[in-house]
């Protein structure tokens, strides 16, 4: 635990990771998708098409890998430490710690590999005559628009088609070719259809597969939640450390600022900001982070005020170690358990807030699926199709419950 981020190198890695995650989020996702496509094609031997975006793919691999390792490491070490301290006997309640971390890890995994897991791409519509509002397990027809060849080199189109072919069990997908009159299909646009697709979780009002959308929504919702939680962790930890170490005036100033931020009715301001600045994913992340750092800041400040009277910090101060180095080497490692639980809680809050915004129609814009906007769309056809909102809501609820019970099991401030 102590060895995890005490070194500047470790901290640098964390910052790099964060910068990559937040600034290049879209690129990381593009890379992830294209990576997954590549893996899928390679595994099935259907084609050796090299998809564009090798660079993004590598960013994606590095970021996700580091991130998962980091997360797992923190969580595992942390829980074992808490178990040791409490002699394990801390109320093994309704949701055991292992189960909640398993749920979280699974959902994160689903969100990472969503493009591999979806039965069909999430925005593919069924036949509007007979595939709308199908109950779970029903069969219907899907029409797949493979899209335009934006790059103009034919490779991405080819790749996407092969991917779809595999997803829809190849031979039954028909790529529309020249029609009877001999007209070529529109250049760069292709369509395929499949007659007997199983809608496991049913289909929505536009004939789209709810399961695929729920899986794709996991990526959007959890991605935004994670990025927002990490960003508010950074802001909160920085402000808390500055307030705790910076002397009396700094403390008063920063804590007044925090109180002010806490007094603002967050969700009202959030919907205002998001509605006015546009609903891009980056905006959402920034807004959610900007409204969520206060809890972390307060907890960190409280801990720092206690820690800075401890002998090892005093000794370091007497030896002339500069304040930032004390913060990084001596305080942050000791703050880690608190930070983890605050961040997990913040993650839950951000995911919930994103979902609420999406539900109100102010979050991620359709047709991109997120759990929130799926619930909002489901509201319109609630009477005719209960399954549309039930499944994404259940996934959302499971993540929230898992995160809350994990934060609960960790030591509080």
């Amino acid at each position, binding site marked *: 635990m102590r060895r995890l981020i005490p070194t500047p190198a470790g901290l640098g890695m964390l910052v790099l990771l964060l910068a990559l995650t937040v600034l290049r989020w879209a690129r990381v996702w593009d890379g992830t998708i294209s990576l997954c496509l590549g893996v899928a094609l390679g595994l099935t031997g259907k084609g050796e098409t090299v998809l564009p975006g090798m660079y993004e793919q590598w960013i994606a691999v590095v970021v996700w890998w580091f991130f998962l390792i980091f997360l797992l490491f923190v969580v595992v070490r942390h829980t074992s430490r808490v178990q040791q301290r409490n002699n394990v006997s801390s109320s093994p309640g309704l949701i055991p710690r292992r189960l909640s971390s398993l749920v979280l890890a699974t959902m994160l995994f689903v969100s990472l590999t969503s493009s591999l897991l979806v039965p069909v791409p999430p925005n593919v519509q069924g036949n509007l005559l007979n595939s709308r509002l199908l109950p779970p397990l029903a069969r219907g027809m899907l029409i797949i628009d493979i899209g335009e060849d934006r790059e103009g080199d034919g490779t991405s189109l080819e790749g996407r088609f092969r991917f779809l072919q595999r997803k829809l069990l190849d031979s039954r997908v028909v790529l529309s070719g020249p029609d009877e009159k001999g007209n070529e299909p529109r250049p760069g646009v292709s369509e395929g259809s499949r007659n007997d697709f199983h809608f496991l979780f049913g289909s929505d009002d536009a004939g789209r597969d709810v399961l695929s959308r729920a899986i794709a929504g996991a990526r959007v919702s959890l991605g935004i939640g994670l990025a927002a939680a990490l960003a508010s962790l950074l802001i909160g930890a920085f402000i808390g450390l500055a307030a705790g170490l910076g002397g009396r005036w700094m403390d008063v100033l920063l804590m007044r600022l925090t109180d002010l931020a806490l007094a603002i009715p967050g969700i009202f*301001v959030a919907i205002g900001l998001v509605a006015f600045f546009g609903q891009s994913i980056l905006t959402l992340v920034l807004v959610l982070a900007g409204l969520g750092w206060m809890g972390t800041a307060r907890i960190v400040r409280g801990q720092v005020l206690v820690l800075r009277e401890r002998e090892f910090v005093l000794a370091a101060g007497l030896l002339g170690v500069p304040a930032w180095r004390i913060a990084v080497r001596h305080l942050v490692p000791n703050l880690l358990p608190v930070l983890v639980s605050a961040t997990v809680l913040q993650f839950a809050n951000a995911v919930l807030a994103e979902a609420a915004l999406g539900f109100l129609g102010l979050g991620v814009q359709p047709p991109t699926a997120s759990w929130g906007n799926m619930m909002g769309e489901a509201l319109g056809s609630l009477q005719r199709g209960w399954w549309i909102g039930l499944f994404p809501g259940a996934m959302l609820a499971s993540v929230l419950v898992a995160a809350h019970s994990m934060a609960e099991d960790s030591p509080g401030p």
Partner: protein
Amino acid sequence: MGLLTLVFFLSRLLPGDAGTLFLSPTVSPEAAERLRVQFGLDRPVPVQYILWIRALLEGNLGLSFSFNAPVREILARVFPNTIILAIPALFLEMLLAVGLVAVAKRHPGSTIDRLLSRGTLVVYALPTFWLGFILVMVFSYWLGVFPSAYMWSAGSEGSSPVDLVRHLVLPSLTLAIPGAAGLARYLASTVGDVEKEEYVLAGTSMGLTHWTVFRRYILKNSMAPFISFMGTEIGGLLAGALVTETLFAWPGMGRLAVMAIFARDYPLVLGCTLLAGVVVIVGNLMADILQAILDPRVRLE
């Protein structure tokens, strides 16, 4: 004051001004200009800010662009509906929380106690709209007991209180349940501390029943943190009202705020945010005052 400034400047910084946004392209530039002058949008921003604050102090919140009516009137018409929804929800929340804790702490550490403490965590974490979703599905579509939306049945607006209560059940439950779970958790932890006190032991050894001890000794002494929590909970209720009112098409402030945002009706958005802020602050203040009345120790400080 900080809230005012923040809200004002955020709304002015934003792209496009209301004059251009709510006029259609067919309106001549001169007419648009006249309108901007009429709304005072041609003045420099600091002047607008000072004018706005002055108007605010006189209780004038400006004119809503989309309703073409004073914001104050719209809020005055709509806010009571939110109160009608929020007050029963608040009481329901307290009732549920105290009831749950009373049942759970009958035998501290028993299976029921542990189950409830974990169960409340689960319920607390559930998203409001999903809960509402399930309630509507079960109670209005499958069982057909309660209506799923609106405040009154069509054609009988304001006629019978029974109708209103029937419409009130699902939204107030949706609003109350997650809050009640949070409250119960909080109360349970306070009660857990209080019941270790010696006066509780004394009460029990005097032969008082469990319920009497709980009511007279434990609950009363757990009240102070409970009330301050309620103060913060009012903000939570407002945020919940945003979603709940949209879900149940309840004509309250939350739904108004969402509509105002979609219509880019800045004065109305400002009004809603301000009112929400004021309610939160008043809630906290009331909690502080109540606490001072109930707990002499707070008064002395």
